[in-house]
């Protein structure tokens, strides 16, 4: 590579100075906006009351251990349910790809399942499973609210994830399936070796988005009485007559979501880049 010409050097210098100017402008406007927002809120007539009941430092410190204990439960539910949802969602999506009349009942069942649990509001599903299932008084049915809540979460989210996987499976070019079958691979080998690896790679970005949504929905098991971070905040705020624990719990959930959100961004950027680079198989 030859040394850049005078013209190119001038161009680079100009671009650099313009970039510096934009940075300064962006910083300045952010600061101005933050200060204006801060002044507006703190000068509002009700601010002292709001500050005392939502942003009380002492209450925050006092409630933090209980909230962290609760969050640890959320994290455990998140991990266990996350794995179950992936496995069940993938299985349902795979069932929906089966062709031929023999598989009709199974396929119909999978479709009905997805329709039902994708349409059902999560909160209703939680109540039905959480209060209805133990109400049957069958032996072997758990009545731990954590387990019941997890069942409801898995039921609903598996339906979403199954649809995401199905979209991924259907995005694999038909010639790929035909190629695999023509090589003598069976349907299940074709799925396992050729289709699913491609499908999973393609749906990683939307899947991570669902994961971020799932992280906060884990907090809904509190409606069944499971002592997670949300429920802990409720208890703490009832004993302290202060809403600060809710704010702290909310912040904890946000902190939990930040890494997965950044990961989701990074993965979708990478996927987009690779798709542009790869082009069609022609």
């Amino acid at each position, binding site marked *: 590579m030859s040394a850049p010409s005078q013209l190119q050097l001038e161009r680079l210098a100009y671009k650099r100075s313009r970039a510096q100017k934009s940075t300064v402008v962006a910083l300045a406007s952010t600061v101005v906006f933050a200060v204006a927002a801060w002044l507006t809120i703190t000068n509002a007539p009700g601010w002292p009351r709001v500050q005392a009941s939502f942003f009380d430092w002492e209450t925050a410190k006092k409630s933090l251990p209980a909230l962290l204990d609760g969050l640890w439960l959320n994290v455990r539910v998140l991990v266990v349910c996350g794995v179950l949802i992936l496995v069940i969602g993938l299985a349902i999506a795979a069932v929906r790809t089966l062709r031929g009349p023999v598989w009709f009942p199974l396929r119909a069942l999978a479709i009905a399942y997805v329709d039902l649990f994708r349409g059902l509001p999560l909160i209703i599903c939680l109540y039905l499973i959480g209060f209805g299932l133990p109400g049957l008084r069958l032996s072997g049915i758990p009545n731990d609210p954590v387990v019941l809540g997890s069942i409801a979460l898995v039921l609903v989210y598996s339906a979403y994830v199954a649809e995401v996987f199905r979209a991924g499976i259907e995005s694999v*070019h038909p*010639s*790929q399936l*035909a*190629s*695999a*079958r*023509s*090589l*003598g*691979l*069976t349907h299940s*080998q074709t799925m396992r*070796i*050729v289709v699913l*690896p*491609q499908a999973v*790679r393609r749906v990683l970005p939307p899947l991570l988005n669902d994961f971020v949504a799932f992280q906060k929905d884990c907090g809904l098991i509190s409606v069944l009485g499971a002592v997670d971070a949300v429920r802990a905040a409720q208890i703490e705020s009832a004993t302290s007559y202060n809403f600060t624990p809710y704010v702290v719990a909310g912040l904890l959930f946000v902190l939990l979501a930040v890494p997965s959100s950044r990961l989701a961004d990074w993965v979708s950027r990478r996927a987009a880049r690779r798709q542009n*680079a*790869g*082009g*069609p*198989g*022609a």
Partner: protein
Amino acid sequence: MLEVRNLVKRYGTHLVLDGVDLDVAEHEVVVLIGSSGSGKSTLLKCVNLLEEIDDGRIVLDGADISDPRTNPDHARRGMGIVFQAFNLFPHLNVLDNVMLAPKVVHKVPERQARDRAMELLAKVGLAEKAKAYPDRLSGGQQQRVAIARALAYEPKLLLLDEITSALDPELVGEVLTLVRELAASGTTLLMATHEMGFAKQVADRVCFLDGGALIESGPPSQILEAPEHPRTQQFLSRIIQAGRL
């Protein structure tokens, strides 16, 4: 080798193959020509049992493979097929693409499958690309790998469906050269193509397909230079106008 008798295929009510009879003898090179939508791809897919047929018989090496009692996964192993595009599995490297069927379907030991795959890649001139992923290959190279892969289990019959029509013009030659070598070494070939010049040189027989029916077939000199049927004449004059013969 291959006998197709009265093959009928419908998509819904749309009759796509209307009683096709076709024979391919061992070591023969048969070229299917016909305008787009005439049913060439469908015919090849039916022969490879990738589509269910609505009537007729397909006999490969004396065995009726269209009999519902035959296992299609087994029957397909006697054939290889290469499509226009999207043949290679993008998440596997070239070597793994070629080794996949021998390893998974035929349970050939890893070592042996690898040696054989490298041998095939050398044959198509791409041994040095063994570890590359398909998106790092040109379209022509991808098609050559796809051919190597189709040959991995020594198929009795190789089906090629317009394997050069998605390629940039300067890449067509390398792929056709490979097909020519295969033909010369006695591979039995049934291929659909728009490359009339190539058909003229390599085909033992050319079959003209129109509206799902086999209108005319014979040696290339006859079909391409002195076709009898008006529809064949029409088709060829369009091709000549487009400058492709």
